[in-house]
């Protein structure tokens, strides 16, 4: 019996339940649904954590060695980050835009070819302490960007013409658009330094393994593209004429670039970074 696969399934279904609960809370404003959503999120996060633990025990290395393992780490960071935000800012409705993302992430993970699921020893290139540091910090960054993506979508919905600042309708329950904008910034201000550390530690590692810290490999280049977009976002937010909607669109483009950096490069573009 491979425990990690069992925990994967539990996490998978739990995130579906949680996503439905948060969506239900958003549309019905039922307080109990909201409470249940938070409680179930904790359980789901624990199952997610148990996947990471059991996988580490089974494989003998950190669960960062391929797309399958890293995706489950991604959802863990995303949901943990979300819960932190929910408690700090007391906003449940954001869950309706984050939890479906976590569930969707596991749906695509479950569609990966079976060979990704099997426990493999590390190949020579991955045997380095930099694996842990590089992947860990990169994925904290990814989690921040995914949160900001959900928040930016909410911001765009909220700041549409005709959408009321408060009151009725599904949009009415959203936090103020200025709060959404600020939180989207906060999550990017979290993700951006971690992505940067991820890129730099990747360079340090590449310098050890391949003899060059930067070779314009597709993975490296796409990480830089994502970095450029979020750098543009950070500058847009303090530039007249670029604040608000334009900045939100930049945040969404950044997330799309990140998704391609993560998945597209692995499947579409050939390169050195052939693990995930």
């Amino acid at each position, binding site marked *: 019996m491979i425990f990690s696969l069992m925990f994967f399934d539990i996490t998978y279904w739990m995130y579906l339940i949680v996503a439905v609960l948060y969506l239900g809370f958003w549309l019905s404003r039922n307080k109990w649904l909201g409470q249940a959503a938070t409680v179930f999120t904790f359980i789901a996060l624990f199952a997610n954590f148990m996947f990471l633990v059991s996988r580490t025990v089974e494989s003998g290395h950190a669960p960062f060695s391929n797309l399958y393992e890293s995706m489950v780490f991604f959802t863990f960071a995303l949901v943990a980050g979300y819960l932190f935000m929910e408690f700090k800012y007391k906003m449940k409705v954001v869950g309706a835009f984050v939890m479906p993302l976590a569930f969707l992430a596991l749906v695509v993970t479950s569609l990966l070819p079976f060979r990704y699921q099997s426990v493999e*020893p590390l190949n020579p290139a991955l045997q380095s302490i930099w694996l842990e540091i590089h992947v860990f910090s990169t994925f904290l960054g990814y989690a921040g960007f995914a949160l900001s993506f959900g928040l930016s979508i909410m911001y765009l919905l909220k700041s549409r013409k005709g959408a009321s600042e408060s009151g009725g309708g599904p949009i009415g329950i959203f936090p103020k658009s200025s709060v959404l904008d600020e939180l989207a910034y906060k999550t990017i201000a979290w993700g951006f330094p971690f992505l*940067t550390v991820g890129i730099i530690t990747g360079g340090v590692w590449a310098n050890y393994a391949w003899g060059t810290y930067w070779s*314009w490999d597709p993975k490296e280049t796409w990480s830089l593209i994502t970095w450029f977009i979020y750098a543009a976002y950070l500058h847009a937010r303090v530039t007249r004429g670029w604040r608000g909607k334009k900045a939100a669109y930049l945040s969404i483009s950044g997330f799309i670039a990140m998704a391609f950096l993560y998945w597209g490069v692995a499947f579409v573009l050939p390169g050195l970074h052939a693990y995930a």
Partner: protein
Amino acid sequence: MGIFSKVVLKVWKFFTLLRVTIVLLISLALVSVLGTVVEQGKSAQEYISVYGEKVYYWLTVIGITDMYHTWWFTTLLSLLALNIIICTIDRFPSKWRSVSHQKTDVSLRFIDNLSNHGAIEGVKARPAEVKEKVINILKKNRYKYEVSDRGEEITVMAYKGKWARFGSDVAHVSLIIILLGSIFGGIWGFKDFQPIYVGETRAIPNTDFKIKVNKFWIDYYDSGQIKQFNSDLSVIENGKEMLRKTIYVNEPLYYKGVRFYQSSYGLAWGKVKKAQFVLVDKETKKQIGAPIFINWNEKIKVAGADDYEVKLVGFVSDFAFDEKNKVVYTNSSEHDNPAVRIELYKNGKLISKPWLFLNFPGLFPVMDDASKSDLILTNYQPIQYTGLQIGKDPGVNVVWFGSIFLGIGFILAFFMFYKRLWINIKSCSDTVDIHIGGMINKNRIIFEREFNALVDKFRDGLIE
């Protein structure tokens, strides 16, 4: 003002605009995509087979086949660098002034107009007492402060985290340092790749030493998957072994600023250790005597055909012939069509230098017509090589220094905040009114709560 300085001023003004930064960043992001869609640095043949000759022509004209080194991509990067430098220089002095010379003596209107403000009115105490209490609370909350005392009206300016203001400057300077490091590496460094045969000593270009490969081996997991590639290397300088180290992936050898990385391995395509031949009867095709083994570059007598001697002089792993230049070469590093070349001597005189094919024994007779027997290649023992990536990069430490500095800048910019408070203490007949205003450079939501909590602390401290 001369025309020249007018132009310089205009250019300077242009590059101080953040809009320019945003446009440059987005352009770099968009353009960079191109170089990932079209594979970089492939051979002309490969491009033509994918895109056709016409498209390939245009790709090379624009430079997309080696995009990140084209003049226009470098120009875009340089413009961004210029933008960073000018913005930093342009903003720094006024920023420094605003932080080092805080305005303490602000008006009541200024405080009440701040986005975070509160008031505590009718405190029964004298202004000087209130001031002491306020300062105590500020100290407890680790604020630094300055006081402007005019007796009846006292203004306290408190602040913390002023270095957070310079986080973005530190980060921007770091980016320039990293860029400079990469330029140093490009100018004074070099990159090379050398496949070196096991047992061979190879002089390394651009250095004054040699590398000897003592051994190459692969470690396997119990499951049969590859665990590690290893090469046992010696550094030879002036005929002496200076250093010996086993390198593997993620563990290079370092000597005199040059690093040697385990990069690949395989069987040599231009040399063998030894080859095995048999002599056969031309008529009956039957083997005569025992097989003959010849080492590389060795000359031996052919047993059974005593007039003849054979020397092993050449090898290609995948035989191909260039008709134009009349040379033999190997088509690939695979051992798909191995062939050895021998020198054939008769009575001590060189008579021919034929190629023998392992896959096509006896295709071309080797011996002359006078001989009743012929020589056939039956086997060979290949030599293993280890592929070493070689690199010297004197800029790399500059890059790492810049990276650490960048980290510091990010901590200041993203995780620390510059907070300022102004507290106006004004006596109003026998009571005192206190107005408090606060400002933060970012992270307003969090500050709103912190500010309100602080106002409550003042209230509790003053009306006990």
